[in-house]
Each structure stands twice: as C-alpha cells, then as structure tokens.
C-alpha cells in the first residue's frame, strides 16, 4: 500500500537519513526501531513531506506517486502523520481539533460516523470535547492527536512514538486501539521506544542505525535478533526479560 | 601578515585624515551630505551594535536621538558644550538601562512595537510638559557651533562607534553576546548574565544615538518634538542596518551610505515622484539582497576564496 524508496535527508552538513526504503501493506502494522538520533523521526517526516528531501525520493501510496506532493496534499492522498510531540493545535478545543482532522476532502463523507468511531475508541475525548487541548494531560493530548489523524480517513497512518508519556495502562489501551484501527484496513507505520509492546502488535519491523536501514524482518525475528537487542534495547532485555 | 595589518592601519589613518580635512574644501552642500552620511552611519552602526547580536529590532532610535536633541535645546545655551554632551550621554544611558531592564524580556514583534510606543510616549510627555510648564513648544537653539564643528564631532563619534564596536567584539562582553545570539540557553549555562550583557549593550548603543541627536540639534536652530522625535528616523535606521547586514560591525554602514545617497539622489532627481520610485527600488533591493550587502560580500568571498587558496598553493 505504501512503498518508499531512496529517501535521504540532510540537516546542514549532517546527513540524517540515507536512502531509506520501506513498505507498509494494507492492514499491516510496521514498526521502525532504532536508537535516539538514528533517523526514525526524520524518516516519518520525510515520507509525510514536512522535511525537504534530497532528489530521488520515491513514495508511492496505493499505486499513486506522491513523491513530489506538498505536505497538505499528501494528507489529502490518504497518508496521515501523528508527529512526535503530537503536533496538535494546543490552543484549540478537542472538538475543533477533530473538526480540523476531517479537513481533507476525502474525509468529508462519513465524517459523523468516523467521529463516532474515534470517540468510541477514546471515550475520554467525548467527555472533553469543549476543553482546550493545552490544559489536558499528556495521554489525553496523545489521544487527540491520534483521533485527529484518524478523522482524516487515512489509508496509512504514521505514528511517531505514540506511547510517549503515556502510563503503561494507557499504552496498553492505545495499542489495543491501534489494533482496532488496523482492522479497518488502515496500514500503520510507527516509530516506538516501547519495543516489546510495539513488536507485540507489529507484523514486521525495520531497524535504523545512523540514518540507514540496517535490517528488517517479521516482528518475531526482530524480537530475537541480537543486533536489535544491542543497538536498541541494550542490556536491559537481556537481564530483565 | 603584520605588514598587511600595518598597511591597512596606515590606509585607515590616511583615509581618516582625508575625511577630517573634508570641510576645508567641500562646499556647504557636500558638507551637509557628509553630515547626513555620518549621522546615519553612526545611528545604523549603533543600532547594529545592539540589534545585530541580540536580534532585537528596536524602533527606539528616535527616542534617544530626540532626547539628545532636547538636552541641547534645554541646556545648550546655559552650559559649556562638552558638559551638555556629557549630560546627554548620562540621560541616554540611564533611559536605556531603565527601558532595557523592563523590556528585554519581551520577544520579537512585541519589543518592536514597545520601542516604537516608547518613542511616542516620550514625545507626548515632552509635548505635555512644554505645553503645560514652559508654555512654549518649540525651542530655539542659538549656540556657537558651525556646520564644520558638527561634521567633526560626528566624525569623532563615527570613529568612536567603530572603535568601541571593535573593542566590544574582542571583549568578553562581545564574546558573551555572540554566544547569546547563537543560543541564549547555552549562554546562560556558560555562566553568562544575559540580562546584564544585553542591557549594557543596549545602553552603549543608546548613548551613541543620544549623542548624534545632541550633535545634530544645533544644525536646525529650532527644535520641536515633531522634529526631534521624528519616527521616520527609527524606520530608516532599521532599514539601513538590515539592508547592510546587522551581524557585522561594518554592515549597517554599508546600508546607511548607499541608502542615504539613494534618498538624496531621488529627492534631487525626482522631487515629485521620489516616493513611488523609492518604493520600487526598495522592493527590488529586498528581493535581490535577501542577506543584505554583507551577504553579498560574504557570498563574493566564498566564491573567490578557494581559487585564492589554489593560487597560494601553486606559488
């Protein structure tokens, strides 16, 4: 469904990402693993079109070439990003954030139904529709961000550390909801700190080190892969698990 | 290298001597033009002194300029001239410290508008004071100062602003300001008292502006708030400094000199359409020179430097 190739990004002199390539299928959850600063976030941003890439980038969504579209048209094409730090409109209310989520034309049909689905996924948002997002807790803000992204009726959803700042209980809830999202036919690509939890729901994964995709495999393969353990999970898995 | 420096220093002194002797052979108009050039060179450089490293856009230039001019209007006929200038310096510095301490925590546009409002507030208060206390709005300045005196004083001031700017750049204060300009958080973590550094610099810059106002005041016999606190001066100085490039000491002067000449040329050549033409030329400059004259120069140097190195290697 989503096919990405030859994505390279530089920040000034610093090469953040080199020729990244990956693929997300329909109803598939794919996770990108890697250490802090390895280029995971950059990779998502590059796919979503909000950081400029070097020439040669190829992004295909549902057989359509979206490599050269500006960010807002990429959303329109069916790819939604929930960025790290959430990227929500903190000064607007929950309801307004959801309304804006349904801003793409592709999302206008069935907006009410989708909104109902999002609110049933995150019942807490329904209780707080009129609240300004800035005043909500981190977990609730994360729900707003994901809810807003879902409102745009995406084919593929990119999530950058969705569990960041969430309590373990919430993380579990969140991943359960992501599974439900996947059941609606949406492909998910996520960058996660929380390796075990994310690999547990993921189908496949990629490993990024120093701006390069250095490995990939099914979730189970990665779970037992030494390189992954070393580069990412460090000793803690070896000792604690 | 040392010989090069010596040559540069000698050339500088020679240039300065030529400038100092200018009033001997220039007629009144060229003297006036030179005064205008010096005035804006000092104002823009002083502006850049503060705004370059800190990136605050200040529209308070005319507030300090006007205070200087008014100091002369009030005290000019009563006290000896050096004392008047000294008092103007003190008032300018004091005002800058008060303003700096209360406003330098404002960011971006808010600081811009605040400084503009400040200039207007001072102007209104001067008007109110004159109207209600002295009952005369305009003041006459009949002091014994010729155009040549004004020119020489401005020349000294111009040299001073460059020397002090150069000294600051080499001092701990200057280093601190560069760090603040790069990253204020890092600056604080290096033990730099950011507030004091900024306020000190603001005060130094303000003193120069105040002195320019004081020195220029005798040129116009008659001082009233609309002449002394002319808001266009603030805007022109900002534009000149930005055009020249405010992050270099000599950048603002590179904006001030051509722009003063351009304004003069347009006013002389197209007295009825100068506004329109000025606007068009201005837009062209903004689009063509996104990094100011300094950017032009840096770019030029970047293009040529590698070749020079190659030549050096070959020799």
């Amino acid at each position, binding site marked *: 469904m989503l096919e990405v190739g030859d994505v390279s990004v530089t920040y*000034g*002199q*610093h090469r953040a990402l080199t020729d990244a390539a990956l693929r997300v299928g329909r109803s598939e959850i794919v996770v990108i693993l890697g*250490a*802090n*600063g*390895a280029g995971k976030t950059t990779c998502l941003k590059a796919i979503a079109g909000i950081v400029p890439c070097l020439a040669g980038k190829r992004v295909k969504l549902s057989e359509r070439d979206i490599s050269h579209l500006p960010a807002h048209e990429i959303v329109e094409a069916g790819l939604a990003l929930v960025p790290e730090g959430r990227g929500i409109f903190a000064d607007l209310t929950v309801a307004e954030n959801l309304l804006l989520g349904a801003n793409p034309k592709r999302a206008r049909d069935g907006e009410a139904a989708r909104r109902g689905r999002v609110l049933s996924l995150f019942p807490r948002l329904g209780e707080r529709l009129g609240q300004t997002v*800035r*005043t*909500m*807790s*981190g977990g609730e803000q994360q729900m707003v961000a994901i809810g807003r992204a879902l409102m745009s009726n995406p084919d593929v959803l990119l999530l950058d*550390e969705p*569990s*960041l*700042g*969430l*309590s*373990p*209980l919430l*993380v*579990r809830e969140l991943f359960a909801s992501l599974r439900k999202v996947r059941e609606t036919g949406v492909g998910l690509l996520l960058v996660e*700190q*929380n*390796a*075990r*939890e994310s690999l*547990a729901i993921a189908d496949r994964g990629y490993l990024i*080190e*120093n701006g390069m995709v250095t490995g990939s495999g099914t979730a189970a393969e990665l779970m037992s892969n030494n390189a992954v353990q*070393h*580069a990412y*999970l*460090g*000793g*803690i898995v070896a*000792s*604690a*698990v | 290298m040392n010989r090069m420096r010596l040559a540069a220093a000698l050339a500088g002194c020679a240039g300065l001597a030529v400038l100092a002797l200018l009033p001997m052979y220039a007629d009144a108009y060229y003297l006036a033009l030179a005064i205008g050039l010096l005035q804006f060179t000092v104002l823009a450089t002083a502006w850049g002194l503060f705004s370059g490293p800190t990136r605050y856009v200040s529209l308070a230039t005319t507030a300090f300029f006007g205070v200087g001019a008014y100091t002369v209007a009030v005290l000019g006929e009563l006290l000896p001239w050096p004392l008047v200038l000294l008092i103007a310096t003190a008032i300018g510095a004091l005002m800058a410290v008060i303003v700096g301490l209360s406003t330098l925590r404002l960011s971006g546009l808010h600081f811009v508008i605040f400084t503009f409002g400040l200039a207007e507030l001072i102007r209104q208060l001067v008007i109110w004071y004159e109207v209600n206390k002295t009952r005369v709005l305009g003041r006459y300045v009949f002091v014994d100062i010729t155009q040549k005196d004004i020119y020489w004083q401005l020349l000294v001031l111009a040299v001073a602003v460059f020397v002090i700017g150069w000294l600051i750049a080499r001092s*701990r204060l200057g*280093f*601190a300001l*560069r*760090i603040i300009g*790069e*990253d204020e*958080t*890092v*600056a*604080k*973590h*290096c*033990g*730099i*008292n*950011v507030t004091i550094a900024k306020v000190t610099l603001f005060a130094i810059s303000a003193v120069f502006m105040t002195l320019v106002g004081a020195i220029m005041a005798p040129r116009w016999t008659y001082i009233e708030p609309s002449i002394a606190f002319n808001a266009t001066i603030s805007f022109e100085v900002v534009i000149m400094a930005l055009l020249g490039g405010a992050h270099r000491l000599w950048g603002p002067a590179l904006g001030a000199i051509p722009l003063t000449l351009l304004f003069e040329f347009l006013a002389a050549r197209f007295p009825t359409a100068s506004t329109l033409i000025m606007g068009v030329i201005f837009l062209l400059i903004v689009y063509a020179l996104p990094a100011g004259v300094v950017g032009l120069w840096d770019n030029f140097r970047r293009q040529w430097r590698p070749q020079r190195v190659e030549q050096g290697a070959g020799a």
Partner: protein
Amino acid sequence: MTAAPAVLEIKGLVRAFGGLVAVNALDMTVGSGEIVGLLGPNGSGKTTALNLVSGVLGPDSGAIHFGGQNIAGMATHRIARLGLGRTFQLVRVLHGMNCAENVRAGLAFHPARLPRGEMDEAASRLLERVGLKGSEQRLATELTYIDRKRLELARALALQPRLLLLDEWLAGLNPSELLIGIELIRSLKDEGLSILLVEHVMDAIRSLCDRCVVMNSGRKIAEGTPEKVLSDPAVIEAYLGAPADA
C-alpha cells in the same frame, strides 16, 4: 546512603505545566564523586528535573541544595558559576563558531577564569580530552553528530564543574563510540567529578552508575544500584509496559 557528602540534594521538588505535573515530590541526592543515573521512560519528567536543577525552570515548590546553597529558582548563569555544567538532550553547540570558541564559551565566564593567554591552551587541552584533538579551527556545524556531543561535553567541562548533568549524552552513539564514551565519563568520575546522568543506554548505566533513580509520570518509583532497580518489576513495567496479556 552514601558516605561522601552530597553535592546535590533535592527535596520535595514539584513542577507542573498547566494540568500536567511533570515532576512530583522528587527527592534525590548526588554524592561527591558519584555517578547517579536518572532513568525512566520518555516523558517521565527527567529532563524537567534537569532543567529545574540547572535553573532553566523555576520549581513550584521544593528545595535544591547544590554545594550547600539552595539554588531553587536561582538564575541559570549563577548556578553555572557555582560549578554546574550540563549538556542537552538535543545537542546544542554554537554553530557559527569554531570548536575552540565553543570551548572558550565555557572557559570565559566562570569565576575561576584563566588569563587570556592561557585560554587557547586550555581549550585545546579540553578538546583533546574529549577526543577532538586538532579540531580547534573547525566550525561546529561541520562536525558529525558524535563530535558535536563531544564538543558540548568539552564546553561543559570548561566550567570546571563540581557537578555535571548529562542529558542522554550517549544516545545515538554506535557501539564502538559508546565504549569510548563510557570510558570518557568514567575517567571524569576518576577525576572526582560528580555526575547526574539521564540515559537510556542500559549498558552504560550498568557500567557507570553507582546508583540509579527511576522516575515515571513525574514520580520517583525506584532507587538503588543499577542491578537492583533494573530488576524491579515496577521499573520493567514502566519501561516495557506490563507483560502483554494473552
């Protein structure tokens, strides 16, 4: 807990952002010559705690004693002059300056500063110390990610700190670099420096830390030796989530 006198002593520290309590009643100490790891999942309040210590933020309540003085709410530059150096999670170097100048930024403004003539030599020495020998004239922008981290550390060391705050300084290093980095930090400890380390790299924590404090959702949930806290079920749950249900 530790025999050595505490360099840093935090009591009842609280800081909230709007409704979110980022640091909640935190107590902890860093003893002289000790390396303490501050652990916890992302968003658990570690960086906020560091910001409170270095004066970037003022606490809502609580006390921070550094070298016997309560520095809670004190201006950052004053805390820095008391002998506190830090690095940042997103590495912050002075891009427009060369490496020597970056280090001089740390050298020039603390109380025990050197005479001008010795400054360059000191800067070179510090650069060499962090593995950037000969990089004096290179612009900070031209450095690789790793070297920027080294440069940032050199700048922090230039302050001659009594306490060093390292905010994920080892993150993003490759395995061989990581070894070098760990050695470097250990050598700092051997020189008598106290270090508070926010880190995710568990190998490093294991081999470096004398003690660890683990935070979650703003609260301290565990404290003790690395072995002890890393096997604490509460910590594992905070880090990895509770074991997945069937």
